[in-house]
């Protein structure tokens, strides 16, 4: 087959993703923000789809937060990453999947640096050997966890108990997809669909019955950005970015937002509360906000898991209106009960943003 014109350009952004045998590394912050997401990723891949996913308790941070806050140099990050690769090599795996977008960007940056400057890789190998007597092979394939759910999207759709359809109107749900900046803005060829038209989340939404909506600030940052948020004096800049994004998507009335980054769902979720308290404005229907979910949470809902078992009670914006639209039954009294029926305590309700 001869590829021509745009078909050829598009072919450059198709990513080869092996089907099985992955070494999984978690994110530093996701487990605090939305702890159900990573657990559900492993649950779906291992128990629902029967794939081989290995994770080890010995892996550490990738150093991304410190790197992007300019507190550690790139050599340190590369040595940390080399150690992660050593753990993968010792476990006998060749495919490396990261849960975090920042980590994914860091791994891609490191592998690209080593490809361009092999002497740097040699130096890092020496540093790693000196530091902890480990050796490593670079991964054959590097993927972000959303790439894998994208790959398995049709298998998930085949097992789906619910589809992204509004049961009151029979129309597909209107979904905003938000891609983490470090997924493909730095290395377009590493992401599915490149930087301008990333298809990774669109593919999931379409496979599960929803409608992707386009809006002017679609590729705008969520507002997190490390130095914007971590320095308190800059937080106004962070929330202003989020505000700009919500103002831009508001006329299109999205039912929910799906994201593939640790920071994006957190900030787009929590900043809705701050915007409501400072500007008096809410973006959902009837005083509610727009629910912001991770792709694992959406996949779990589609597969019919209990919303409270996948951690949806930890979202600031109430997800109940969305669950009603999807036709998913839930027990409101069980919302703040843990897996072991432990009482998680009820949070204080915000003043303006309506929560259930």
């Amino acid at each position: 087959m001869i590829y021509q014109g745009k078909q050829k350009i598009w072919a450059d952004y198709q990513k080869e993703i092996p089907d099985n045998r992955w070494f999984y590394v978690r994110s530093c912050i996701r487990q605090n923000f939305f702890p159900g997401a990573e657990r559900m990723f492993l649950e779906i891949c291992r128990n629902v789809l029967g794939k081989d996913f290995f994770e080890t308790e010995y892996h550490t941070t990738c150093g991304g937060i410190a790197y992007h806050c300019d507190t550690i140099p790139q050599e340190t990050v590369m040595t940390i990453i080399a150690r992660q690769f050593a753990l993968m090599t010792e476990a006998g795996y060749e495919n490396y999947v990261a849960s975090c977008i920042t980590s994914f960007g860091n791994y891609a940056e490191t592998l690209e640096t080593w490809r361009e400057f092999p002497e740097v890789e040699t130096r890092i190998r020496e540093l790693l050997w000196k530091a902890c007597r480990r050796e490593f092979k670079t991964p054959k394939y590097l993927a972000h966890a959303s790439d894998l759910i994208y790959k398995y999207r049709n298998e998930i759709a085949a097992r789906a108990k619910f589809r992204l359809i509004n049961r009151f109107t029979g129309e597909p749900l209107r979904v905003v997809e938000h891609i983490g900046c470090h997924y493909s803005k730095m290395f377009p060829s590493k992401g599915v669909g490149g930087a301008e038209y990333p298809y990774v989340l669109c593919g999931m939404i379409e496979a599960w019955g929803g409608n992707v909506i386009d809006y002017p600030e679609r590729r705008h940052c969520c507002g997190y950005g490390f130095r914007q948020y971590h320095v308190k004096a800059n937080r106004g800049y962070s929330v202003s970015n989020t505000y700009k994004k919500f103002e831009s998507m508001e006329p299109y009335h999205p039912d929910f937002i799906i994201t593939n980054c640790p920071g994006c769902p957190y900030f787009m979720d929590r900043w809705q509360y701050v915007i409501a308290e400072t500007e008096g404005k809410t973006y959902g229907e009837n005083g509610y906000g727009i629910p912001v979910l991770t792709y694992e949470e959406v996949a779990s809902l589609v597969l019919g898991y209990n919303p409270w078992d996948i951690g949806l009670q930890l979202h600031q914006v109430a997800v109940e209106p969305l669950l009603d639209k999807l036709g998913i039954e839930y027990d409101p009294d069980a919302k703040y009960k843990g897996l072991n029926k432990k009482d998680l305590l009820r949070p204080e309700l915000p003043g303006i943003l309506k929560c259930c």
Partner: protein
Amino acid sequence: MMDFGFKISPSSTINLDKVDLEKFTRLHEIEPDVYKCMACGSCSSTCPAGRFSGMSLRKVILDLQRGKEKEAVAMMKNCMLCGKCTMVCPRGINTRHLILSIYRIYAEDEK
């Protein structure tokens, strides 16, 4: 409203579809040269008032095209009509005359 110690910055977005350019059209009728400006900034860099007061004819023209009339008129009040900008304009625009015309049209409400 709650005080978090930080707040949303006002947006600098300008919706050109909502800008009323009626006065700018009138200005163009009596000063066709206004479209000759290529925003090189020679006028602003030679302006003796610019350094102290923020006066910049380049910015004034840009602001008027973007509907930021109040800012433009406020800036114009610092002009001393010395005419240095007219001497350096590479497009030969009679900037002094342009400034007077702008003032006549845009500051008429203040008379």
